[in-house]
């Protein structure tokens, strides 16, 4: 059995480029159809980032920007899960980068002017590499919701941004994780760019008492699926032979 190309993306499952409820998409959505092509070596290869690149606190957002002896303010949480492909196989050595607002809903970014204060001990940035089974975990504080200029009174639900690299550049994905039970999820124009409720639910992390650390931190589980490759005896491919 050889590896074939990547399974095509289901574009009806992902949000469309043009989604007028999210106003910024209107002038940034390509107006012409995407040109279809098979994946080639250029998309089936991709950068792999080793664990030796990581610092010991890269996946600890409570401490990685904090002064010595201090810590970020907010609800302490662990976020963990597994990255698999569409066949359910773990994706090892996948780089995950995360970023988020602080517990008050404020980002450490030059363009964020929300009146909630910055936390001097919180940078809002972390990264990790999945293990041999595709598992990952990081520690952070639960981000707060915040208002944003879209509709007159639109609010983002609490969320953490995720960026993922698999083994091939065609798997490149950026998404957002939401928290179980947040009523703002279903009112958010960015969430609502996703066509189906079933797809939205895939972005909602479940509270996970089995991973909670007693007297310390609550836990949420968020599993991620990247594109898989066709497995075939019959695909004629000259490269690499």
């Amino acid at each position, binding site marked *: 059995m050889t590896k074939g*190309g990547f399974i*095509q*993306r*289901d574009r009806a*499952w992902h949000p*469309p*480029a043009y989604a007028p409820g*999210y106003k*910024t*998409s209107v*002038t*940034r*959505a*390509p*107006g*012409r159809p*995407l*040109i*279809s*092509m*098979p994946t*080639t*070596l*250029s998309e089936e*290869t*991709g*950068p792999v980032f080793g664990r030796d690149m990581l*610092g010991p606190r*890269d996946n600890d957002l409570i401490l990685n*920007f904090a002064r010595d002896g201090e810590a970020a303010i907010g609800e302490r949480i662990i976020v963990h899960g597994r990255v698999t*492909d*569409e*066949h359910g196989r773990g994706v090892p050595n996948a780089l995950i*980068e995360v970023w*988020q607002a602080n517990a008050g809903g404020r980002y*450490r*970014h*030059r*363009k*964020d002017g929300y009146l909630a204060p910055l936390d001097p001990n919180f940078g*809002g*940035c972390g990264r990790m590499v999945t293990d041999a089974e595709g598992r990952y975990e990081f520690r952070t504080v639960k981000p707060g919701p915040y208002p944003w200029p879209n509709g007159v009174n639109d609010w983002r639900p609490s969320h953490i*941004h995720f960026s993922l690299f698999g*083994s091939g*550049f*065609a798997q*490149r994905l*950026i*998404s*957002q994780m939401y928290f179980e039970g947040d009523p703002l999820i279903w009112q958010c124009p*960015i*969430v609502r760019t996703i066509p189906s409720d079933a797809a939205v639910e*895939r*972005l909602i992390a479940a509270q996970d008492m089995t991973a909670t650390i007693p007297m310390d931190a609550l836990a949420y589980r968020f599993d*991620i*699926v990247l594109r*898989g490759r066709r497995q075939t005896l019959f695909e004629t*491919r000259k*490269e*690499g032979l």
Partner: protein
Amino acid sequence: MTRRPDTLKETPSQTAGPYVHIGCTPNFLGNTGIYPEDLGARMVNDRTRGERITITGTVWDGTGTALRDALVEIWQADADGLYPSPEETRGAADPDFAGFGRSGCDWETGAFTFATVKPGRVPYPDGRLQAPHVTVWIAARGINTGLHTRMYFADEADANAEDPVLARIEHRNRVPSLLAQPEGNGVYRFDIRLQGDHETVFFDM
């Protein structure tokens, strides 16, 4: 009822939002002290083989305004056409070449820049050679799923004429949107237009 194959659906995409720099280029943003350097900030060193080039450009929205909050990533083969990736089976790529680059856009002008080498040619699945190209991926506020395109070189007319991916573009007047223009001293300009008469060709694969 028909039983469907037991596969999982990909995690749905969401926009990178305006604050993508916090997670992807914190040092570029000024949030220093977390990572020693930004990922993809350095593609080459003194020993890297091949012709040194600089890729620069701007991402333009449908009103002709430069995106100043976009994240642009590139992935390319080394000067011999080999990828520095475990999925590369044809040989070992230049150990002094990263293949992956990532750039924020200038806060005022929107310009992105990569210092790299000109890539060699890479085969298509059927064995034909593709023209030298760089894979480009754009994420930003207002872009719901990252946009995938390719940069080719305007000064590779013969290779471009036989490239199997460029050949798939029915409207031939759109091909120039993928050609980076040489500006001398190894600088190539590659502007990306999200909409309009000269909209860049984006790919689905």
